[in-house]
């Protein structure tokens, strides 16, 4: 007999506890054997520096601690980091990785620190030790952006800036994956430089897309020539698309969204085959590699954020079959051959498929997604658990292990797994709970849900962006309006201010007038242009689109 609802819930909680145990197995061994190095080497039980020398695993795992509810350890680690981490070091660091792991990790820890019971200083969330650290780290990255195109170098020396003779070739994701962290920094600190450089880099990529609307894999940041011309949604490009969407959500920015939608159209046209996404030549659109990459598995999650749940589910189910074949996702999977690709058989315990499962489970509550979670827990425990932690799978064909545990295992894989099995986690808050914080800039509503995860799974509270410098101006306006509210005789006619639009728009007309009449609605529907910042509501057949059932479009 099938398990009932209560049974399913119990199974869910039981798996959640297994994930928690997995976390501590890895985390404690890191602290014991590898700290203060960046990463744990699980086979030799020691540590190594990989992306710099920042105790990376600790920074990355910090907000996972809170999501697991371990407040005291969170507080301890915050202190350890404040004392122990130094960015004035002569280290060549990846601009991209430092941003997503270090800046992102510190920002999210800063924004969550009040929830974690850390005694925050008076200016929080607009000031705080972790924020200062994040800012410091981000400032170390700024020299990389000083190029003729505004697109950053891939590597920067934290002490000396860009090394002379540094290669100008950077991958697309290394250029377009800053807006979430940098815009948050700018909003919190009031220094616009971060958001500005991130936007400039995004625009440069947009300008250099091909005639058919695709971007390649690597570009020369000096000459803006594409060096690698493979276009797809995976390695080298992935988080660029992700950040267009997440930036649009976080900043309510139509321009970013319109860029993404254009790309999305081209991606569907040229790379999508039978719910798989292949690699094509960026100028011609011809298929160059019929492979699925492990990194591409974030795509269904991204689609679900903008409401394309049907397509997301179909692609997810494709990817899930690959997992079922190997117990993990190989870095490359040849779709026509149905097997791994030579030299790309590894699975470094990446989070992307689980991430998508978490987003999709929010949208559909489909038990199939919990099943993937179950499979992931079983696989990771059975295959990669060793005495000292969890080891990267070097080869999915025979499950040979490698001496590495990437920091994203604790930052992302475990976090998304835990969140998949913990539907009541504060991260899933749908707006029924919130905190009110009084800052020097006024009263501020925080923790109302809608957390935007950066590409290293560090959640950013979108409400926090409205808390600092900008709040003041808005507050005066709101107070004026409220005064108007209570006065009997209305003197002013209220017209809405058009959103600050970067893209071109139609002529402005008074929207308040237009919408007040029925005719206005009709005009709107005729125009058939809907807000870019919206999702389509789900179709009728989505009620039955669970347990693997998919529906073809009626059109």
């Amino acid at each position, binding site marked *: 007999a099938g398990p009932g609802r209560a049974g399913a819930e119990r199974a869910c909680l039981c798996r959640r506890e297994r994930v928690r145990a997995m976390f501590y197995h890895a985390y404690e061994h890191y602290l014991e054997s590898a700290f203060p190095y960046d990463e744990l080497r699980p086979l030799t039980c020691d540590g190594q520096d990989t992306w710099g020398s920042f105790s990376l695993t600790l920074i990355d795992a910090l907000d996972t601690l809170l999501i697991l509810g371990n407040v005291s350890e969170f507080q301890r680690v915050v202190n350890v980091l404040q004392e122990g981490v130094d960015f004035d070091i002569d280290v060549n660091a990846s601009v991209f990785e430092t941003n997503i792991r270090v800046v992102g990790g510190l920002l999210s820890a800063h924004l969550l620190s009040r929830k974690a019971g850390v005694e925050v200083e008076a200016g929080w969330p607009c000031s705080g030790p972790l924020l200062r650290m994040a800012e410091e780290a981000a400032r170390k990255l700024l020299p990389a952006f000083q190029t003729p195109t505004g697109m950053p170098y891939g590597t920067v020396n934290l002490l000396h800036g860009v090394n002379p003779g540094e290669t100008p070739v950077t991958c697309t994701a290394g250029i377009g994956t800053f807006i979430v962290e940098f815009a948050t920094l700018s909003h919190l600190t009031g220094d616009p430089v971060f958001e500005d450089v991130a936007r400039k880099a995004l625009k440069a990529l947009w300008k250099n897309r091909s005639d058919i609307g695709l971007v390649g894999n690597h570009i020369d940041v000096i000459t803006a020539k594409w060096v690698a011309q493979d276009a797809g949604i995976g390695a080298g490009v992935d988080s660029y698309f992700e950040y267009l969407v997440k930036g649009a959500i976080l900043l309510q920015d139509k321009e970013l969204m319109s860029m993404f939608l254009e790309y999305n159209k081209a991606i569907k046209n040229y790379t999508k085959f039978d719910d798989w996404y292949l690699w094509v030549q960026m100028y011609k659109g011809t298929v160059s590699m019929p492979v699925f990459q492990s990194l591409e598995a974030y795509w269904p999650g991204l689609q679900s954020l903008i409401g394309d749940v049907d397509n997301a589910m179909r692609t997810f189910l494709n990817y899930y079959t690959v997992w079922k074949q190997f117990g993990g996702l190989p870095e490359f999977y040849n779709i026509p051959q149905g097997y791994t690709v030579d030299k790309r058989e590894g699975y470094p315990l990446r989070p992307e498929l689980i991430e998508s499962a978490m987003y999709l489970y929010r949208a559909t509550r489909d038990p199939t997604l919990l099943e993937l979670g179950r499979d992931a827990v079983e696989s990771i425990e059975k295959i990669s658990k060793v005495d000292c932690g969890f080891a990267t799978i070097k080869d999915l064909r025979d499950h040979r292990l490698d001496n590495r545990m990437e920091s994203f295992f604790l930052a992302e894989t475990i976090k998304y797994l835990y969140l998949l099995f913990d539907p009541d986690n504060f991260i899933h808050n749908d707006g029924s709970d919130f905190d009110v914080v009084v800052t020097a800039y006024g009263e501020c509503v925080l923790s109302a849900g809608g957390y935007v995860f950066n590409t290293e799974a560090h959640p950013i509270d979108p409400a926090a962006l409205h808390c600092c410098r900008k709040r003041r101006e808005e507050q005066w306006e709101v107070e004026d309006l409220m005064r108007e509210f*209570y006065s009997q005789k209305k003197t002013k006619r209220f017209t809405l201010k058009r959103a600050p639009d970067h893209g071109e728009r139609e002529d402005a007309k008074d929207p308040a007038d237009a919408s007040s009449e029925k005719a206005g609605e009709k005009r709107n529907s005729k125009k058939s242009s809907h807000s870019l910042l919206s999702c389509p509501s789900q179709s009728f057949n989505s009620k039955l689109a669970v347990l*693997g059932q998919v529906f073809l479009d009626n059109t």
Partner: protein
Amino acid sequence: SCSRAKDVTMPAKLPVNFFSTRSPVIDLFRGQLDYADQLRQDSEIVLYFFYAPWCGQSIAAREEIEHVASRLSDQVLFVAVNCWWNQGKCRKQKHFFYFPVIHLYHQSFGPIEYKGPMSAVYIEKFVRRVMTPLLYISSRSKLLDFLSNYEPGVVGFFEFNASPQPPGYLTFFTSALHSLKKDYLGTVRFGVVTDKRVAEEISLVHSGSVYLHRHANTSLIYPKDIMNFTAENICKWALENREMLIRWLRPHGGKSLLLNNELKKGPALLIFIPYNPLAEIHPLLDEITKVALEYHKCNKSQAAEADLQHVGDSDSPAFDSSVPDAHLKFSETFPIAKYPCCNTVVLPQWHSISRTHNVCELCVNQTLGVKPNKVHVPHCNFLEIEAALDSFYLQEHTFFQVISNTIECSNFLSFYSPFSYYTACCRTVNRHFLSFISSEKTIFQTPKVAFSSHGKKDNTQFSIPHIEDRNCFIPDLNISSMNITGLSCRTNKTLNLYLLDSNLFWIYAERLGASRSTHLKEFAAIVDLKEEVHYVLDQNQSLVGPTLENFIKNFSVLYSPLKRHLVDDPSVHFHEEHVVTEVTTSTFHQTVFLSAKNVLLLYYAQWCGFCASLNHIFIQLARLLPPDSFTVARIDVTRNDLPWEFMTDRLPTILFFPHQRKEQSVKFPEDFSVNLPNLLKFILHHSSLSSSEPCTKECLHKESVLQQGHISLLEREIQKLRSEISALHQAHDQLEAQLSEARREEQRLQQQKHTLEKQHKSLQLHSEQLQATYDQKNRELLEMAEKLQELADASENLLKENALLRILVASRGRKLQSKDEIEEPLQSEQTLSEDNDISLSIATAALEEKRIDNIDTVETEHSSGNRTE
């Protein structure tokens, strides 16, 4: 650290037992496929369970397999093979894309892959089917049993009298096994008849003939002369020609278009029942089958009636009666219509969210006119009904005035024909439509025709009911007289019938609105994918034949009384403390339309990124607006269906329902960014607070209320400012504390500086002293060096002197020699040489002394060197 650690890898762990050693399942965890093949020789029936030890599905299925094995281990050999370990034979020979894979062998026949649900009962059922693919049918009643089943049956007739192995029997047996390969659900059942008299029942005369039974269409006999008599062909023939009156839907969990393909065929009735495939009897299923057979019985074939009878009364001894008898019996029970021609009219409603219907039964009572014949259920000619409707609408206000739960009827004369009059009975019908039907039944049996009515007083403006499909033939609508028999052929809304096991697929029922709290997992819904609607059979009624029949009938009638089911999110509870009111399907009307406040409603979905990031704005807005005149509400439209007119196709959508003008809702313009000032302006623009009329008493009152509101707002503002001030105070205190801390620090530093300075001084002193001693030593050293130099000089002199002396000695030697030669001249020089001798001895002594001195100075030099170091 060790650089070789980078290249450290570790092979996968060695495989271990997957099943416990006490399990009845043989576990070949090293993937010994060759041994597995050997084992196959030992048993007639073998089940292979190919697994991967890391696979979640394999782990979940393990328990189920063990359960089946514990029940069948005496007849079936269960072998589990680890088909993942790359050193094992299995991995090397087989290439699976998923795990677990279950293969069955019946002796040498196989593999038959099991693709059904991974649940013990289903697996056991399938294994049993593989064990006995043919059912032995020994008697007539067993034959009827076999044929009455809803699933297609194939019967082979083989006479075993002539030979122990009649020709074709083996082929037939194999075809039964073969069908399990193709049709893993085992929908086509195979039976064998050996008795000639039993075979005659289905007009099989020759041994070796094969018969496919069908209910609605004529049954078939395998055309041996056209197709070769092979297992594959028989199987293919049966699968192609089988009749699926009612189908099980069993999605396998992977990506599939099953529901898409089935539901796109047209409206579908999905029936969810808990199903145990191993159970001997399925009373509920039989009842549903009966309904299905009757629904599909269009051409009243004899066989169908026989079955019907059998299903309804399976243990009746009347079964020995021949088929024509059954037919006769059936005709007698066929309801003979005595009722006038009627039409159900659903009146338009004022608001569609109400759970009630306005249903009227409009009947033409003809004193002269067509008399219904025995066979056909009476139906109204379209013109007649239209005429009746016309008259009816002229009279309708009389019905609408009545708000009653009892049935109100009235008669009125036709405007067109003096011979007929119409009767209308109307009443409010809520979801419990069945009670309506049953009560109606009694009414319709009286010549006075019933009518039902319900209405609201103010709905006159909407009172034109729509008639769908005007040019279509209107089927019989008299519910009481309409029979379900053959309805599928008479209605243009034919339903496909499907069964789902609620033990496995209850989630679909929940999605369609089945209650989550119910213990009895029975549910029925009609889903119309094209129209994007679904109807639900009230869960308060037990799922039995008659209710199901009525459900189908209600769907089939032209003005269907069924209401689109709106799925409601039951998990939402009303929270007073939530600043943003959560609206559901059931509270929508209450919160939005009935409340005396201005309502700002946000349509959202949890998964939509653009909605979730607006949460804080709506919370702020709700905290800002006076709660006694404004409601800020939201509805999750993925979990709450709304009537069509309130649906929206994009999320988020923001609607404003101004107080007193709720019907004139306004939409927040989409191309404006959603932020607090914009929302406030939007509300200000549309709120009904503004009025330009001259002030009356009411207005003054309003004004005062308004001002009161303002005051409370200002008070809240003050509160906020106070808290802001306190926050600033706190910050100030904190700064103060930090400052004093800094000052203390400074002082401490100052003190430290002093002590450091002191230390510095003493150190300087010390260093001066050291310098002095150093100088002194240096000087001493220099002196020593000088002395040394002197000594060296002296020794050099001595050496020179020595050499001189040697020369002297040599010259003296020579002189002595010459002395011998010249004694005389030597005598004179004697004294000189003695002088020389004395001086030599003095020099030697001095030299000796110097040497000792020299060693001494070297020693002192050494020790002083040590000190300066």
